[in-house]
């Protein structure tokens, strides 16, 4: 699941020059903005069947924390 998740992040945020790492503070990526956030929401819904709200996202810093939230939402 971890690799599937990292692949999803790379694709959703259109990251071309590097591999995202679990400890990355992804909201500091150049690629992160309100438009890429929409793609992320769609991909998380499509591939993992979960939604992550803006409020939940506010408290999340690293990709690991985002993945933890996804797993929690999946129950």
């Amino acid at each position, binding site marked *: 699941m971890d690799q599937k998740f990292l692949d999803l992040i790379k694709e959703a945020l259109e990251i071309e020059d590097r591999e995202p790492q679990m400890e990355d503070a992804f909201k500091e990526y150049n690629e992160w903005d*309100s*438009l890429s956030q*929409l793609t992320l929401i769609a991909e998380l*819904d499509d591939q993992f069947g979960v939604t992550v709200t803006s409020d939940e996202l506010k408290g999340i810093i690293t990709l690991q924390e985002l993945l933890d939230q996804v797993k929690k939402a999946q129950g």
Partner: protein
Amino acid sequence: MALLSFDQVGILGMAAAVPAQTIRNREYTEFFAAEDVAEIVDKTGIEERRFAPAGMCASDLVFAAAEKLIADLTIDKEEIDLLVFVSQTPDYRMPATSVLLQDRLGLSKQTMAFDLSLGCSAFVYALSVVYSLVHSGQIRKALLLDGETRSRVYHPKDRRVAFLFGDGGVAALIEKNPKFGKSYFSLNSDGSRGDLIKIKAGGYRYPSSAETVQERVVDEHGNISTDEHGAMNGADVFNFVIQEIPSDIKRILTAAETEKDAIDYFVFHQANAFMNGYLAKKLKLPLEKVPSCIREFGNTSSVSIPLTIVSQLQGQMDGSTKMLLSGFGVGMSWASCVMDFEGCWISDLVEV
């Protein structure tokens, strides 16, 4: 659960009017760099919008659409017993714009007229109200007018909303007639998400004042707006849509005892191409059954569903056409319906 159904009530014809003034989004670069704008346009799919010039109201657009429709169908105005005006951009806070339109259109003083204030869900909501009244009473013909000047609602220095919204107005004539079959409506609301799309000031909770018209930076990206302009949390609106709309579509299909494959056209509120594209994908709908006018008119709130029908489906609904309409947005409020259009007249698009 608000599931309604009616029999032998339907839409005789529809017309739409848009301002002639066309805004090309890629050239709408007064406040933002062309490359940033291009990125937004690529994502939202909104190339052009129509802006009402100063002095033109939603009521002027629906008036033009109504006159066109009444003339095309050679309707005797004496037979119009009900006028409903749908908008969140009315002429005045009072009186209701529908009442002014009764006089302007030269309708009888025995016309029942009132306004209905909802956003992107409003056309379907208003159809259910009009169908209900026509179904139950002695109303010969009903005129449903739906107009918006949403271009004025959002601040041009707030990039989250500055490139999305446009203006337009539509008219639909509805009557009771044995040629129409059954129609089904699902109507919903969730006020707990009222903050997702909101104009804070100008009502009675936060009256307009010197402070509410002040421009200020409203987020960490430096977007500028005022309390008199619309604010939108796009990410959570998207979350709302993917959580609620597919299940509402399932609900209305079940209520109508029909299946996805039997629907000829799915006409959704035109929010933006990304959201609508994902919705169609999630519902596994063939794209040729999902008409769109987002590219040329942007998001026109409640007008977007009928404007899509008038601008995209003219000449493609001969005979009986099974339609599923679904509107969703500010409130949050959402509504879906299934009905057969029976030779519904579509007027040529009017430019004002």
